[in-house]
């Protein structure tokens, strides 16, 4: 059993050895002649001062979050509708419970001001 892991161990050793040999060889063989120009990120122009700023329209994300939840939960209605005839009573109760929970989430979100844009 454990012997069957031997190839993995062998591969690990091989990978490590390869990395080691190539790094050492390139250190030893490569020509080194650094100059300030070579070490700059760009040949011409001025190096970036800050990384570009990312934009987060926070309001948009809040609405998107709320939308995604209520939008995607609807997926559950499709299999329910298809298999409704197999167990009508049970699935009706189950789906009522589910819709009730969604309703609770909606009421909570509404009362806490999640739907106000400003």
């Amino acid at each position, binding site marked *: 059993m454990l012997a069957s892991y031997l190839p993995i161990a062998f591969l690990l050793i091989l990978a490590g050895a390869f990395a080691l040999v190539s790094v050492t060889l390139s250190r030893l063989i490569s020509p080194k002649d650094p100059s300030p120009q070579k070490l700059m990120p760009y040949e011409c122009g001025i190096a970036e001062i800050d990384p570009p700023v990312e934009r987060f329209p926070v309001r948009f994300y809040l609405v998107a979050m709320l939308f995604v939840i209520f939008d995607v939960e609807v997926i559950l209605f499709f299999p329910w509708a298809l298999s409704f005839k197999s167990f009508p009573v049970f699935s009706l109760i189950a789906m009522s419970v589910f819709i009730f929970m969604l309703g*609770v989430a909606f009421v*909570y979100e509404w009362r806490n001001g999640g739907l106000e844009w400003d």
Partner: protein
Amino acid sequence: MPVVQHWTVLLPELALVGGAIFLLLIDAAKPSQRGPHLAFITLVAVVTSGVLAFFQWSHPTTSALGGMVVGDKFGVFARFIILGAGFLATLTAPAYLHRRGLDRAEFYALLLLSTAGMTLLAVSSDLVMVFITIELLSLALYVMAGFERGRLESQEASMKYFLLGAFASAFLLYGIAFVFGGTGTTNLLRIRAETSLGGVADFRLVGLAVALLAVGLGFKAAMVPFHMWTPDAYQGAPTPVTAFMAGGTKAAAFAALLRVLVLSVPELRWDWQGPLAALTVLTVVFASIIAVSQTDVKRMLAYSSISHAGFVAIAVVAASRSGIAAALVYLLVYTAMTIGAFGCVMLFRDGDGERVHLAKYSGLGVRRPAAAALFAFFLFSLAGIPPTGGFWAKWYVFFAAIRSHHAWLAIVAVGASVIAAFFYVRVAVVMFMQEPPEGDEMELDSSVGLKIALALCLLVVVAVGVAPGFFLHLAEKALPFGG
């Protein structure tokens, strides 16, 4: 209609979810309300759930909801541990949250939902159910970890926990997909049938799948090398949440790991025991060594919880009847002593905050001898020093390992617990042997809930220390599990 039968197995979870919905509704009726009544509602829901679970102890094993969940004694035992963690966390939370202005209904609703996820995970007998319940408990915990939005550490804990947790669930799900590919089913019992003699399982796929599942569940149980999130999440999260995470999540994750590995793929035992034993050794040794260098007490306790995950995993590797019973007893004691230890951290307040740096504990034993002795007791139990419950838990685990011919694991674990004892005892030394600094009055948190919680933890640890055989017998009665 077979699907509808035995839905009563889910009554404990329905009580928890009902409590959560009630909390959200009263919050919707009067937004942003605060107060002790919220914690009281939570406690009522947890106790109701516990009572409903208790009635299932005497029931015969039933399979419910088309084989999605199973009502058995193992599930009831695991549920009790998880509900206990939820109960204790709810007791400790109000004072802590009130000081920081966080005692809102959402917190308790999330706590209940997370508890429901954990208890459902403990009774899942289908991998789809395992995935959904893990997500339920994790999503609630991600938010709870970041509940202290004003504090950078809390936000950071939440983000790290979330990113790594979602990463791990992707592995879990991919594992489930491969189990389905290999066996044509996600039901644990049918997987067992397909992987047994005469089954049609494709073992290449199932082998890969078990590895992926172990990554996902190992993450939730915080085993090295899937532990990276644990120290940060435990240190940054509000302490009641940390206590809850440390106790409840671990019990639920190991219940699921036992069901998946021991119940559904015992035929592949020779393949998963070796790698899991390797992870176990890595976990106990690595966590014990790293913990020695920690100066933040919450972070040190986080590493301690990682090393304890390793000890429980020894019992899983043993994969025998006595191993599973030992794992259950271990999880029971572990939950009580870890929540006790985090409760003591909450007890030692420092102005508005709590004492987390080890240096701030110097002289506590001189100024507050009773509280310091209590903390020392929990630490000694975590270390596994003889008269405590922690010792017996370790004893049973080692015994199970030796009986199933994994004596070497027991020996390594004993070595690791010697290292681990060092950092537990060091805290006691700092508390009792060092002089208290001038002008530090070392006030204690005077909340009643916290005191009751600590008393309950102490009771469990002492009870297991005094009558370990009774609890082992109880755990053995919870076996064998199945559907």
